[in-house]
């Protein structure tokens, strides 16, 4: 039954035996999961379990950290993202990212959203206007800012800033949107707005979300991957910690009928 549920739908990204190292220290060990097209996949787990690390590996954001290294394969349309001939810029243009803390550029709302399209060589004012309008509408922000697109992005409230960042991401029409705890800095009302937005976006995009909040994972996601921590004593009394994939299943199944005891204890809130 599990295999049937898992098998349904096309795969957007396929992670195979992914390991991430930070300056030769293992951070995440051997993660293999599929990311299904037009579905929301949630990554959950205790702090330090490597869920954000895996997420950042998917659009090669870890390249920016000196000493970070990824082993294994992340296949996207049959090509390994970590292959020699792959350009990380190409990857990030197709797999967009929304960050934990809203990080609008210190520019106007319009320039924030137009940033990506301009990089792609769109210079025509009318086309840009259209893209900006469509993207801001797409992130349900239009009614709040339509009169004042020249206002600085930093002048918006936290929730609005985060929706601006989402608008900025969908302006470049990515296939996949990665969200790294997008609601952790927001109040409940703003969180609800983002969650509704995600449900709308998933019709045209594939979404991966890292969340600390199990209710949120339950509310929005179709599939959930649970990560946990492994520890080992090293010589000299130092403790080594790294993350592993605990369980991957459709969300409903993972929360109602977890296979491993560790997952069950985590969803019951016994650690984390």
């Amino acid at each position, binding site marked *: 039954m599990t295999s049937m549920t898992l098998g349904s739908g096309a795969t957007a990204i396929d992670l195979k035996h992914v390991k991430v190292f930070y300056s030769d220290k293992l951070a995440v060990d051997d993660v293999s999961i599929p990311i299904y097209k037009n579905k929301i996949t949630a990554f959950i787990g205790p702090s330090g379990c490597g869920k954000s690390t895996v997420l950042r590996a998917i659009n090669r954001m870890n390249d920016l950290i000196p000493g970070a290294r990824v082993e294994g394969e992340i296949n996207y349309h049959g090509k390994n993202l970590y292959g020699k001939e792959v*350009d990380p*810029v*190409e990857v990030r*243009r197709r797999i967009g990212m929304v960050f934990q803390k809203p990080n609008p550029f210190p520019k106007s709302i319009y320039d924030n959203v137009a940033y990506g*399209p301009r*990089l*792609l*060589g*769109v210079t*025509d004012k*009318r*086309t840009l206007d*259209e*893209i900006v309008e*469509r993207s801001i509408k797409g992130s349900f922000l239009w009614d709040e800012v339509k009169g004042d697109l020249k206002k600085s992005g930093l002048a918006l409230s936290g929730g609005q800033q985060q929706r601006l960042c989402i608008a900025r991401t969908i*302006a*470049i*029409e990515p296939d996949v949107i990665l969200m790294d705890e997008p609601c952790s800095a927001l109040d409940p009302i703003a969180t609800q707005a983002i969650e509704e937005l995600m449900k709308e976006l998933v019709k045209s995009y594939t979404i991966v979300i890292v969340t600390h909040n199990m209710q949120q994972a339950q509310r929005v996601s179709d599939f959930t991957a649970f990560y946990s921590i492994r520890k080992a004593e090293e010589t000299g009394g130092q403790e080594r910690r790294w993350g592993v994939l605990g369980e991957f299943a459709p969300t409903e199944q993972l929360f109602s009928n977890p296979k491993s005891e560790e997952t069950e204890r985590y969803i019951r809130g016994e650690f984390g």
Partner: protein
Amino acid sequence: MATMSTARERVKDEAKFTAGLRNRHLRGQIWMRFFQAAILLGLLALITLMFNVVNRVYGLTAVRDAVPVSTFSDRPLEELNASELAGILVAQLPSGGRVLVRDSLIGQENYNNNREAPLSQLIQGVTLPDDVGALTLAQLQPENTQVIFENAFTPEDMRLTIITDIVGREVLESWTWSESLFNRAAIDEKVASTADWEGAQLEWRSWLNFSFLTSRMTTVASESGVRAALLGSLLTIFLTVVVAFPLGVGTAIYLQEYSTGDHWFERLIETNIRNLAGVPSIIYGLLGLAIFVRALEGITQGRTIISAALTMALLILPVIIINAQEALRAVPPSIREASFGLGATKWQTVFRSVLPAAMPGILTGTILGMSRAIGETAPLIVIGASTFIANDPTLASRFTVLPIQIYNWTKDPREGFSEIAAATIVLLLIVLLLFNATAIILRQRFRRSLSA
């Protein structure tokens, strides 16, 4: 709806994107090379600057003696004793050396007041035989000057005078180290064939040598030394620090430990220091000229090391204050709390706990200020540093310092002076290097003591 899809297509136009991306990467590559070139140019400038100086300190020099030593002495000057040297001066100088005695008296107050005074009063600190001491300058005969030379001048002084006044040594031309190495043939050719250069001798010469450090200034580049300027620099720096250190540290302590920043006067001090740090140094020179040299002439004796040091002290005060504040800020609050917790008063806490912990940082800042002061030239030109000082300076005498000598010698068009300017630069840079090495050691100590 149609336009919408066009916009969408524009963004999703894969072929165009791939083509564009190649250009974008190329542009990034080109700019990265530019950024790299910028820093390499900075590096290159530093290397060129250093090489340009060092290149002039060592090389071939063509020197000519108008009257070679061999014409009046069968032994080299270095082997002669004081009375033999004095004998040469008496025998070779016109009027038996009376002019030389007079020249050394010019500028002395005693001589200016009474030119008819007996020599024993004019030449101080030297015991002359009674019969010679009773003479006035006008009565001085060649047979008496021998005694005066022997007693009043050191052998080194007499040797220098023989070389400049009797031998008439002259630097005809000097070549850089690289020219001397790679262009030797042309140099030999020039020395041999130039008509006026008969008797010229070509020799390898290091312009920075021990006697350059220890001998006095003369009018001949090859014999001139930097002793007066070096002593002047050290004296000035010493006095500058003596004045600026307590004032600067005191201000920093007030601003960091006592000031709350609420009172307008405290804010004024703070803003004022930032502004003073940006005032051009030559303005401090004008201030020193009007206040220390002119208005306070009674205390400072005019254009003296005292005036120079007071001016420099004001100049480096902001540097010391800003760095000392930084060092005090870095002292962890726990140290203050521990001290207060033991019933210490504010001053006890500051003086016994905070200040010792911040001291290495404060000293580092002070050394930075000293580095600035030892290289400053403009304010000293304005307050009137002298160009030619033969005697060792005192606090209240006219003075010169290393950078002033660099300035004067660089401007001097005569052969050889550009080279001694270079030698002085190397000397100044070595002094700076010593300062900075001390600062680095202190900074490391500081870091260790705070982390312990």
